[in-house]
């Protein structure tokens, strides 16, 4: 489990307008690039001080590459991060609030207690 790394992906992409568009247009290529180049980057440090041990598990990489936000929820990614990024990518394709309600509908099979989001 690398919930922290899932969240790090969502966090770093959501705050960068160019990465948001790259993730929308080419999710698999972008996730592979990000994992290779940025997963180990210690934020606010130069590349020479990167971490050495962070990588996605296969299910996590597939969920990100497939834009599979219900799966990200099941994996314990932070729901606020997932929601915010996916709104940024896909709200534009729907009526007002249409994407948000579809998002809820696609998670309707989830019941309490929800997956643990502690990292």
């Amino acid at each position, binding site marked *: 489990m690398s919930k922290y790394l899932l969240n790090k992906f969502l966090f770093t992409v959501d705050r960068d307008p160019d990465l948001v568009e790259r993730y929308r247009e080419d999710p698999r290529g972008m996730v592979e690039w990000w994992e290779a180049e940025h997963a180990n980057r210690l934020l606010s440090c130069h590349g020479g001080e990167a971490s050495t041990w962070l990588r996605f598990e296969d299910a996590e990489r597939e969920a990100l590459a497939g834009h599979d936000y219900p799966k990200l929820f099941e994996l314990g990614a*932070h*729901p*606020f*991060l997932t929601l915010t990024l996916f709104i940024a990518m896909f709200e534009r394709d729907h009526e007002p609030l249409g994407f948000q309600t579809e998002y*809820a509908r696609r998670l309707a099979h989830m019941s*309490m207690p929800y997956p643990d989001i502690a990292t």
Partner: protein
Amino acid sequence: MAELVAVIASTHHPFYYRASTATGEDRPPFADEWVRKVEAFRETLTKARPDVLVMVGSDHFHQLWLDNMPQFLVGKAPFYDANWYNEEREFGLPRMLFTGQEDLSAYILREGLDAGFDLAFSNELRIDHSITCPIITLRPQNDLPIVPIYTNIFAPPLPRPKRFVQLGRTIRELVESWPADKRVAVIGTGHLSLELGGPRQFGPHGPDPEFDRKAVEWISSGDIEGCLSEVTLDSLHLPGNATHGFMDFMLMMGVAGEGAKADHVDTYDLFHTMEAYFTWYPNGGVA
């Protein structure tokens, strides 16, 4: 000594700015009533004639992140830029700039540490909508210096509810012992029941109207003990997966005091979440 002239607890609905400024076909049907309620709420702060605002909120993974996560953090800076790209993108919030009341920040940090709270601090803090929303609703002219205080209601492990109440009590003590001839208002924002990124999000009401009813009763009557007897970190998952933001309301109940009845109470049942507005005048009225 400084005087605590108002204690204000509010939700921080990020869509208020867009709804209240929209015109014509873009203006949602609930906007006019929402504006009316917010303007009445604003008047409760205006009447208190504050010089300084202590602003309690919670960073939504903007500057505070999982590689270095504080539980309680006090901003200590001469200025604070505000609102983030993803808040402009999603909510249409404007860029803002605040002046800091740096001497009060220093006082709260020093005295807060000595009072048993290991407060983190930031000398360069870009604040987010948990603090800018109440400025937009309560003080849109943005003419007063602030002390921002952030709490972690977002990234577990979280402090327990009782700790929020205790910090609220301590903030009050520190404001009232601050050796300055200033009128201070403490404003904090949180949530009632709320779901974000889960199956109960963006419904026609908040996800748990019964929780909301009880929460409004606890807050408006100052029933800290009753609230603490029912609210735990575990129980807050039930009304909605983002309901831990209610602990910022509990912090504000700590500022207001046990048994303190709010002087102004208003709510507005919107889609997605219930708005709730509370004002206390600690000295029995507006001088």
